[in-house]
């Protein structure tokens, strides 16, 4: 198992570069900003974990990177993938990118797969959409990818319909679909939510081994920081459509800077086994919740829920600062 690197890859040209990305749903008075000035780079082969509660804009970010946002969404800024500006790409261009060079794994594989097609054919369909191939080669490729995601009884699974497989197996099928064209970037949006812990760990293991073997970069979206430990190279923390903290996973976990990150990390039982079992009283929840009204008031958007607020927080919105090399945070009162 390779260890996540402690340094942010710089210098080499990034695989993906997102600049000033704003996404707004709806127009006029009822418009709701979903992403607000999002900037980040992704190096080839990097695993980035995006952490945040529901409503933080994680899924909107995933959809905009896949060109799958609804028509009513207003999108501004720039997304450059391997030197190509994606926001100006036409649908025909997207079709050659999606699935082949940027692929996605969503939360519910049961919904993503067709119930009336054998799963093997559904994987083959992805290959056929991107390059010509003959039946025999297709089948071989599909079986190879099924072995890659560690499905047993490849022959039986290949010919099975989705309802004949378990939830964990279906997850692997949808991962196989995402991987079969060896994309440079995989976007996984909460792929392990509602799975048992054992299955979760297996899925993470498959993704990590693929990342190491093929060098595919991975954006892994989750609300559970525990899943990113020992898995992600870098962690980006989002709140209300903004990036509030970004840094190498090891350093973010060791010393989180933003009060929101601290709150999220406190939710994982961090004591020894003995201490967790002996714990009494209440859980360390972050008080309050994100409301739409918060988005309109001036000052820092996290201020109403923040435990480290100072007078300035109510008046001004903090700008991004880089307290250490490779880290950034948006908070007036960051650190310990």
């Amino acid at each position, binding site marked *: 198992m390779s260890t996540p690197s402690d340094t942010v890859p710089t210098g080499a040209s990034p695989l993906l570069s997102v600049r000033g990305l704003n996404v707004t749903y709806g127009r006029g008075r009822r418009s709701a900003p979903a992403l607000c000035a999002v900037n980040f780079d992704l190096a080839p082969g990097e695993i980035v974990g995006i952490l945040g509660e529901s409503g933080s804009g994680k899924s909107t970010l995933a959809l905009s990177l896949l060109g799958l946002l609804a028509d009513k969404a207003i999108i501004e800024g720039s997304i450059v993938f391997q030197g190509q500006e994606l926001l100006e790409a036409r649908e025909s261009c997207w079709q050659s990118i999606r699935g082949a060079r940027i692929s996605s794994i969503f939360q519910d594989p049961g919904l993503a797969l067709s119930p009336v097609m054998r799963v093997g054919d559904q994987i083959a369909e992805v290959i056929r959409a991107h390059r010509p191939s003959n039946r025999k080669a297709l089948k071989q490729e599909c079986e190879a990818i099924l072995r890659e995601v560690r499905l047993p009884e490849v022959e039986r699974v290949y010919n099975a319909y989705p309802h004949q497989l378990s939830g964990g197996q279906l997850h692997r099928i949808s991962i196989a679909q995402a991987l079969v064209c060896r994309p440079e970037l995989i976007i996984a949006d909460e792929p392990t939510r509602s799975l048992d812990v054992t299955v979760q760990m297996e899925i993470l293991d498959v993704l990590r081994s693929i990342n190491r073997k093929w060098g595919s970069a991975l954006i892994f979206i989750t609300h559970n*920081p525990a899943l990113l430990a*020992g898995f992600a190279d870098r962690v980006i923390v989002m709140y209300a459509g903004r990036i509030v903290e970004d840094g190498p996973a090891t350093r973010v976990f060791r010393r989180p800077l933003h009060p929101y990150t601290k709150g999220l990390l406190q939710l*994982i039982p961090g004591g020894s086994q003995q201490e967790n079992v002996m*714990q009494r009283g209440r859980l*360390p929840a972050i008080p309050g919740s994100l409301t739409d009204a918060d988005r309109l008031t001036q000052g820092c958007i996290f201020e109403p829920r923040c435990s480290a607020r100072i007078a300035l927080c109510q008046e001004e919105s903090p700008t991004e600062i880089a307290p250490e090399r490779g880290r950034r945070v948006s908070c007036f009162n960051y650190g310990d």
Partner: protein
Amino acid sequence: MGIEAAAKRAVKAPLMTTRGLSKQYVQRSAFSRNKFVIDAVAEADLEIAPECLTTLVGESGSGKSTLATCLALLERPDRGEIWFEQKEISRLSDRDLRPLRPRIQMVFQDSAGALNPRFSAAQIIAEPLEVQGRETGQGLRTRACELMEEVGLSPDWADRRPLEFSGGQRQRLAIARAIALKPALLILDESLSGLDLSTQAQIVNLLLDLRDKHALTYLLISHDLSLAEQVADFVVVMHQGKIVERGTRHDVFLRPRHPHTQQLVSACHVVEAAFRTAQAGGQP
């Protein structure tokens, strides 16, 4: 609440006890006369201590939800007994059950599906009060607003529809409805599973506050062991329709006896250990 307090409460007679509870489902094939019999719950012996939080854990398909619907008597068990407040209730007629129904309430996983989208928040909470004839007229709304406040929702939102609330708020709404009739036992079937960790923690804290205030007893069904590890007084483990282990949180997590429990507990600890290592600055 500490282990000692839990032990003290458990000394009282259990609120609910089951003996040899079994439920089978028969699946008929559409094309042949073959029948498959699935033992969803087999010979379950269970004790739910009063004013405690008992967590029922197990993988998906282990029979947790079937057991829960039997305990709430939404389905009748095929065999076995359910004792609730010193009465055998599994074979009572529907009419005899009616006065007991308000004593056992259930909260489901999918709050969006469990709440009528056309009702306002106040109507949702007031409905059981109205059906049971506990309140009438203006009293209904007043009581609904009180309950909203109790679960941490602003009464100003009484006229909002369920889909205007966030997932966590909707779950609070479902809890408000469930406690409206002052039940003794609240069965929470994966009620926290779809929520973010921070929302989960808030709802757990709310449940603990409500328990202390109203002497509520909880049966929390979950596939998430790390939650059970932090808050449960008692843990029951199900595997393939059978209860394979039950005991205090302390016993189950520190000295798991059944191999399946050992496997679940160690998987849960692998995740936490990786996180702790990362926090300490080491490499996993």
